[in-house]
């Protein structure tokens, strides 16, 4: 049993409930007395609210409460401002609306139709103001300001402490990273390349829409069921908004139907609680698909990248300007921009680096975390340009990467030392998987052309962060496990159970993960940043070790043997002359058929490594992707024949789960590469539905997807494991773009890579011009 647990694709603990339709998601749950909450949204992109009249809405039969700015202006019991980094969002618009879809009022009614009728009855008088819809416009001198004042909370994230909004501008934050002297770097280079790359706004498109149910108990305790990936952040923010101790806020989370970063930080919770306070009833808000698109997006980006290279391919200097479009509210944009900046130089040793990464406000829906978190933006630029460089130097792109890629002990752009780096292995294995170097002869009469491309990445995890775990042993030796990690589909319940089962020598059936309830489980920062296996997994391991320590202590006391002669292994406690089950120990300890032992484990990462060096990331994600494509030169359509994803996972605790994560990320990457794009017309999103915002289907995925796991164990990770959730997504677009270039010689710099863009570039190529000339 023991040797089978870690590294074995055991039956996942959530799957039976899911295949039988019995897994409960929030919209499936019944709450007595619940009423329906709906949101009135701004019809304009930017405007001042001159006046508002909700009296007619209150007269609609069945309406229980209407919440507008009047409930918060001059109300000292509620602080309507919130936001994970800056307090720039409010429960409903107070003075201005900042994007088309910005919440202006909320209604709670006994039926959905009454709520809708009430929304229509609210009169709002707007003074329309000029608006900006992209980062370049937003940066222009004299551009309309999204925010005149930005409130900075007194206690923020430690890693973002240095970031402040730039006054009287749309710059939300500016992150700078320099190493060496980039001008010198360029001067010493033989070649300098400069390119601009862009990515559009996209959306997570979890099939489950955001939902919340909130009520306020007599006595003021707030209870919130939410589809959130970080309940403890919600608890803190609600405690700040409604001015109650965190113990008076209880957040519960059922299974989540997909997150991908889209369900982090407050979304509907503040408004739902405000409505519930007023209605004195539980209020449920479930977003429509269109509203989901208006709630959170992935940052569009404009990236200028300039690279100096020596004749032999040595990267010598890189300057990069990243402009990320965070929309109307900062959300977690400042951190996205920071992470984007950190990795804009790519996973390469470059002595001279200068990076400026800006988080910019515009009058669009707020952008936040999305699987790949800023790195999928910067890697699009960096990894595409690598192949531009390789082509110019007539070098093999694989060779160029291997020449410069980080290896064990190299110094990262921040000056810190990189350890446990399986990058070059990932690159080589991904390349090998698509038969790198094998060339098929081209059939010149066919319009189809084949090509291969590569891309690789480095990404940080959120640091510092905190995860705590409790493991409660019952009288029969089975355990309940308490964790703040949310099962969003990534398999955390299973992996954490495996770790506990392994540590305590139990079967999977003896381990049960408790439901997520902030009243019960100890603090965890967030289920994001691919951090749960590493952090929570380790916390679980420590909790088990704590528990084993207690067992050892108890056995020593109860059986009067020296502690050093007690061993806890293979699910048993061994003392000289006897082997005792957990049950026996607990029974002896408590003298009845009941009683618990509780082990605790805490993982706190810091911005300083154990050796006192600066530490940007508790561990690094390293990986690579390789694609083989077939391009139809006459139409520009691309077929991905094969995609190989390689990631340094440290240790694959559940190999099938790792494969699912790598492959799933690759599939999302394919959508982002070829067609996903939110299209705006003067601030209006014109495709907020799955007919016009297209998602990848079974027929769009590469014909073969191979997932390769490189295992370079991390000393801090549980059994050596690192995170994996995001790694697979990041290289997809540049790897495919590079393969397209390899196939037909055109370079697409703006995502998505539509057939039209390829076709037009091919046409320009035939005419002997480049797209820029046209």
């Amino acid at each position, binding site marked *: 049993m023991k040797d089978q647990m870690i590294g074995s694709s055991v039956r996942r603990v959530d799957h039976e409930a899911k295949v039988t339709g019995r897994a409960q998601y929030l919209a499936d749950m019944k709450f007595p007395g619940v009423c329906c909450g709906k949101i009135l949204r701004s019809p304009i992109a930017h405007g001042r609210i001159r006046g508002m009249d909700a009296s007619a809405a209150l007269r609609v039969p069945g309406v229980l409460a209407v919440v507008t700015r009047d409930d918060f202006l001059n109300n000292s019991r509620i602080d309507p401002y919130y936001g994970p980094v800056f307090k720039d969002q409010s429960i409903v618009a107070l003075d201005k609306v900042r994007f088309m879809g910005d919440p202006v009022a909320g209604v709670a009614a006994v039926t959905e139709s009454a709520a809708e009728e009430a929304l229509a009855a609210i009169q709002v008088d707007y003074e329309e103001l000029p608006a900006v819809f992209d980062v370049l416009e937003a940066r222009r001198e004299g551009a309309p300001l999204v925010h005149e004042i930005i409130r900075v909370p007194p206690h923020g994230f430690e890693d973002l402490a240095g970031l402040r909004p730039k006054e009287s501008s749309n710059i939300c934050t500016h992150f700078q990273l320099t190493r060496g002297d980039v001008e010198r770097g360029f001067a010493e280079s033989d070649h300098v390349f400069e390119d601009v790359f862009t990515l559009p706004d996209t959306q997570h498109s979890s099939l489950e829409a955001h939902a919340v149910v909130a009520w306020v108990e007599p006595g003021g305790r707030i209870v919130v069921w939410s589809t959130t990936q970080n309940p403890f952040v919600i608890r803190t923010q609600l405690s700040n908004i409604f001015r109650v101790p965190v113990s008076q806020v209880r957040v519960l989370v059922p299974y989540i139907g997909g997150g991908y970063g889209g369900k982090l930080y407050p979304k509907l919770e503040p408004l739902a609680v405000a409505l519930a306070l007023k209605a004195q009833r539980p209020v449920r808000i479930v977003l429509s698909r269109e509203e989901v698109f208006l709630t959170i997006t992935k940052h569009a980006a404009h990236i200028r990248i300039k690279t100096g290279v020596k004749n032999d391919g040595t990267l010598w200097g890189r300057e990069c300007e990243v402009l990320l479009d965070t929309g109307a509210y900062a959300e977690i944009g400042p951190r996205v921009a920071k992470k984007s900046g950190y990795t804009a130089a790519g996973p390469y040793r470059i002595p001279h680096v200068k990076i400026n990464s800006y988080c910019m406000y515009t009058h669009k829906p707020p952008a936040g975390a999305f699987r790949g978190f800023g790195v999928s933006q910067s890697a699009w630029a960096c990894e595409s340009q690598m192949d531009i460089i390789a082509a110019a130097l007539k070098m093999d792109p694989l060779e160029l990467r291997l020449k410069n890629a980080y290896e064990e002990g190299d110094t990262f752009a921040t000056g810190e030392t990189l350890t446990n780096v399986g990058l070059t292995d990932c690159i080589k294995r991904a390349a090998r998987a698509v038969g790198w170097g094998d060339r098929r002869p081209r059939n010149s009469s066919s319009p189809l052309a084949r090509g291969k491309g590569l891309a690789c990445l480095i990404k940080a995890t959120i640091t510092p962060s905190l995860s705590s775990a409790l493991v409660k042993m019952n009288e029969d030796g089975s355990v309940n496990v308490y964790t703040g990690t949310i099962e969003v589909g990534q398999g955390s319940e299973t992996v954490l159970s495996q770790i506990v089962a392994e540590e305590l020598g139990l079967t999977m059936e003896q381990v049960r993960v408790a439901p997520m309830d902030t009243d019960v489980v100890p603090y965890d920062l967030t289920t994001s940043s691919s951090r749960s296996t590493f952090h929570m997994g380790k916390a679980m391991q420590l909790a088990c070790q704590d528990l084993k320590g207690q067992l050892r202590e108890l056995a020593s006391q109860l059986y009067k043997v020296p502690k050093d002669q007690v061993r806890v292994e293979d699910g048993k406690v061994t003392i000289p002359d006897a082997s005792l089950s957990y049950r026996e120990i607990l029974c002896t300890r408590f003298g009845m058929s009941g009683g618990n032992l509780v082990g605790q484990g805490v993982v706190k990462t810091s911005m300083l490594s154990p050796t006192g060096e600066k530490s940007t990331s508790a561990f690094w994600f390293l990986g690579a992707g390789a694609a083989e494509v077939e391009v139809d030169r006459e*139409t520009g*359509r691309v077929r991905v024949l094969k995609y190989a994803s390689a990631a340094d996972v440290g240790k694959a605790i559940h190999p099938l789960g790792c494969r699912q994560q790598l492959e799933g990320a690759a599939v999302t990457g394919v959508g982002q590469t070829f067609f996903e794009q939110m299209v705006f017309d003067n601030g209006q999103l014109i495709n907020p539905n799955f007919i016009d915002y297209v998602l990848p*289907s079974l027929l769009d995925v590469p014909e073969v997807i191979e997932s390769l796991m490189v295992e370079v164990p991390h000393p801090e990770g549980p059994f050596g494991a690192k995170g994996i959730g995001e790694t697979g997504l990041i290289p997809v677009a540049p790897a495919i773009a590079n393969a397209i270039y390899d196939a037909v010689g055109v370079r697409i710099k703006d995502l998505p890579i539509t057939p*039209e863009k390829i076709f*037009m570039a091919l046409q320009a190529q035939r005419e002997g011009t480049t797209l820029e000339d046209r």
Partner: protein
Amino acid sequence: MKNFEYLEPRSVQEACQLLRQHGEEARIFAGGTSLSIVMKQGFFQPKYLVNIKKIPDLTGIRWDPKRGLTLGALVTHRELETSPLIQETFPILSQIEEDVANIRVRVMGTVGGNLAYAEPLTDLPQILIALEASIRVAGPDGDRTMSLEELFVDYYETSLRPDEILTEVLVPTPPPRTGIEYIRFSSSSVIDKPCLGTAVRFTLEEDLETVRTARVVLGCVAPTPLRARQAEALLEGKRYEVQRVKEAAAFASRECKPVSDLRGSEAYKREMVRVLVTRAAPRAFEKARAFRGQV
């Protein structure tokens, strides 16, 4: 969705009477795949839905060597796709149906609804027009027949009068030496609505070289399916030649009137019309030469 009254007539006549009685406040309901979308959005709020699915004479696929193929208005996409009769007589129809929307829409959506709804981004009309299909229409004052081409007027707009019901589609038996090819082109996901669709049909003279009839029907490049008549005229009555196909394709590309939208710019769509006509024509020609009584 706003509430409405749900009516279930038992005969075509009764259905027409209901439509006449309620005018613009009533709408025919069959598969409901398209109607439900606009109703949910609030774009259209009928007071009455007239469900015609309980009417017995509107179903069924029939084949008669002389008359051709008759499709009841309630025949679903999925029936077209899987019917052995269709696979034997008009395999082109079942082939294209495999790619229409998704399995659930094909199960629910009807041929009659697809045509009478006149949604611009769709596949079936191009093929049926290329095959010179006609439709039967019932009204309170009796039946009439018209060519399918005449049905389409504008986006979502047909020449049906408000109290008329499309009851049947008639596809004539293809003349000997006929071949048809349809290419559905998507510019994003394979399952996206078509960016454009191109049907090319030839009927050859006995020499198997000369084109007697040519049909080039373009979809999604105008408010209605569009016959590229200049392209057809260029091909008809002449020997089939690659060069002439290229010229015809260029004509078709100029004749259509695509709009720039999410699925491609006007310029790109024109180019693709050229490519697709060039690709479809030789396949249609080869099929015509190999004609064995089916298209």
